[in-house]
């Protein structure tokens, strides 16, 4: 979260440029004009901090190494999913298949490992299976002009169905599978009693995915093309951008993220897999992306915003757990309310933008 100033590299003016000579007022106005795009993300960040402070004041032990590391480690699979989802949504698409693909990839991977295949190869196969679902969805969207909603809905049913065909029981990976290692707790800070800051390799993977995605979206031509497609695929085409190739890659990336999320999640549950894993995760991921300030209409949004969005949902769960008096059922209602507020804020901002 401390990385928020790098949400975008656009709004920081370099002092060498001519505007440095302008009056402070004009400079600020310019900064405001440049930076409006990430206002929703800033609002999300403010909300997140507000929630954390509230939780700290009301229940205590929130700004606490142990709690923080639990929050982050628990969020790792969703972080990876949200990253893939952000890329898809910025391109004005949607991927409904992520939860089901996590389930299929998890079950299939564990069963493959059970047949004696090398564990690490098994992990690779899990990611590849996710990417394969993405590829099929991407080809449907790009080549056959199917709406992303329908294409990925089909993938969702397919993946969930295949997972259920493989097993309806809990399957377990062999004792010596790499899942065990992926769930190791690395103690980075040894505090008193349980107040340790620990990370798992799974969290490290999630952080690497986030960093990689930020680089991809802001520092590569294909990443910028994703934004172009999101604003208007027709325009992007007329601007001579490689729309077809990029769009297929977008869905492959989202699928691969689902596969990777399956790896991290399966590790976090000691290598057990079930066909009902990930029910509704696609909606959580979409909610996180929207809360993080990405427009569902595409063309605007930030990967780091989605990270904030995931953490908002995580902290919401934390508060409800800590409080103990709130019925867990309310979680969905609160999530819905927060989502609604954010969409409204975005609408208002979008309208203002048009009026200018």
């Amino acid at each position, binding site marked *: 979260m401390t990385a928020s100033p790098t949400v975008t590299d656009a709004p920081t003016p370099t002092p060498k440029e001519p505007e440095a000579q302008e009056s402070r007022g004009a400079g600020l106005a310019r900064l405001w004009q*440049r930076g409006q*795009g990430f206002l929703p993300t800033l609002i999300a960040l403010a909300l997140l901090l507000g929630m954390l402070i509230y939780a700290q004041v009301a229940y205590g032990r929130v700004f606490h190494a142990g709690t923080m590391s639990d929050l982050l480690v628990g969020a790792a699979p969703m972080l990876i999913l949200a990253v893939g989802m952000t890329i898809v949504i910025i391109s004005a698409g949607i991927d409904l298949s992520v939860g089901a693909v996590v389930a299929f990839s998890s079950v299939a991977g564990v069963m493959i490992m059970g047949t004696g295949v090398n564990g690490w190869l098994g992990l690779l196969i899990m990611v590849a299976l996710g990417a394969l679902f993405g590829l099929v969805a991407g080809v449907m969207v790009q080549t056959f002009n199917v709406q992303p909603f329908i294409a990925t809905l089909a993938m969702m049913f397919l993946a969930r169905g295949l997972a259920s065909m493989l097993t309806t029981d809990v399957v377990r990976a062999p004792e010596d599978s790499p899942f065990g290692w992926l769930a190791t707790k690395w103690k980075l800070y040894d505090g008193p009693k349980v107040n340790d800051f620990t990370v798992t390799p799974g969290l490290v993977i999630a952080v690497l995915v986030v960093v990689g995605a930020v*680089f991809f979206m802001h520092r590569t*031509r294909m990443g910028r093309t994703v934004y172009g497609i999101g604003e*208007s695929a027709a325009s*992007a*085409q007329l601007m001579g951008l490689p729309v077809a190739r990029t769009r297929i890659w977008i869905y492959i990336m989202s699928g691969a993220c689902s596969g990777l999320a399956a790896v991290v999640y399966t590790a976090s549950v000691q290598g057990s897999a079930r066909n009902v894993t990930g029910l509704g995760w696609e909606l959580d991921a979409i909610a996180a992306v929207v809360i993080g300030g990405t427009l569902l209409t595409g063309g605007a949004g930030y990967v780091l915003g989605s990270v904030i969005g995931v953490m908002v949902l995580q902290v919401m769960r934390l508060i409800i757990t800590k409080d103990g008096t709130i019925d867990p059922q309310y979680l969905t209602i609160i999530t819905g309310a927060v989502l609604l507020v954010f969409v409204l804020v975005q609408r208002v901002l979008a309208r203002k*933008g048009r009026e200018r």
Partner: protein
Amino acid sequence: MTKSSPSVAAGSHPIVEVKDVSITFPGVKALDRVSFRLLPGEVHALMGENGAGKSTLIKALTGVYEIDSGSILIDGRERHLTGTASAQEAGISTVYQEINLCPNLSVGENVMLGHEVRGWAGIDWRRTHAEARTVLARMELGHLDPRAPLSSLSIAMQQLVAISRAMVTDSKVLILDEPTSSLDANEVEVLFGVVRRLRDQGVAILFISHFLDQVYAIADRITVLRNGQLVGEFLVQDLDRTQLISKMIGKDFESLKALGSTRQKDMRDRSTTPLLAAAGLGRKGAIDPTDVEVHAGEVVGFAGLLGSGRTELARLLAGADKADSGAITVKGEKAGIGSPVAGLAHGIAYSTENRRDDGIVADLSVRENIMLALQARRGWMRRVPAKEVDKLVQTYMQRFGVRPNDPDRPIGLLSGGNQQKVLLGRWLATGPDLLLLDEPTRGIDVGAKADIQETVAELAEGGMGVVFISSELEEVVRLSERIVILKDHRKIGEVVNGPEVSAQSVVSIIAAESEELAEQAAQELASSDSTTTDTTTTDTTNADSASDGRDS
């Protein structure tokens, strides 16, 4: 007619050469062995009316359409273009009427998208924006902040940014497709400044515009297309406006002159309350505030070239578009017409120029197509009884002689002329007081054309007000009692028809370079006091005229 123009270096080789290119769509020969060339350092205007093949040619040059035969040579090499990217690679960039950029991204990024400067850590934004600044400065847009979002700029500035983007790839050819349609006069000047600058740098510019004045202001050379065929290539100074228009609409200058009107003098009393009167009716970017009156039993023609505002005005009158200034009165009462349904409620029916897309519902039967508008007017709660439907459908199909005489046949399977007759039936079924017909005779055979013209005359005789819009001026002149002349989104005059009014005289008014000249031309025509321009709309001085024989 292919001498080098002064601004073109003698003997320079064409940068683009289109040789005998044909493109066929199902049923239409969009381009028929068209040849065309573009020289470096010239502004070349491509002119033609609807369906002339302008956009098809552009799409062939930008690789959107595949050519069926012929060849396209760029810089002397034959090229097979497959899309925008491959056209750009060949050195051809295009700027379209609608700005195809990304409003949420920064100005600099829009210029550089796809060509960002990359360093060891991916895109180097500082250098990318610096490069964008350089490119913008070449267009004299150095004052723009490359990091501001594109949406913070005016449409005109965005259009210039689009041109800057086109020049990032060092294009040798720049295609400007209607770049000025949403710009005001000052903005057009800025754009032209940039265009001239690029021309002087040796860029070949293909300029497409409906604005004759702009074409004459900027172009060195003109190629005229008509019905998918090449009419010719001309130096601007060798082709005056009248000649250009007659080349575009396809009547020789002489034959235009010869084609006198068969219309007799008009003797309508226009002192009564008009059926419909619009005062200062306008919509930004579509038509400047305009006054129009239509009386009962009168056919008013809207004459003007494509893009003159003739369709836009009709759409405002019908409520198909919302006016942002002015008011409409129907039979003396103020009427708020903000939607086609409101238009229908006031007895105004509008038959669109785009029969296939906005007119027919191809998969529905002839019967259903006829009943659509009436049912819409009545509301879905009050279904038209089946018996009444059959009667109405029968009546209109017989009256217009719709072939084949089968009300259950999907309308998409009928010929264009028969479709048009069905549409006419649809609007008449609503019992309108005023019928707006936009290009009712386009693309239909001669027989059907005559039928429709006859019907229009009959309807007016029966007391209906009719507004008749057509690219074929002879048709407008033959049918109309009054002709409203439009040009460049403005009404430039109004002529009361009479024996001395001909298609040619209307052309000369449109072709006149300025408003004063247009007025003068109209005045000349009015030497026998039967003509008014829109500044003097006292049309009641025609009592001395002969019988009101409408000829169709």
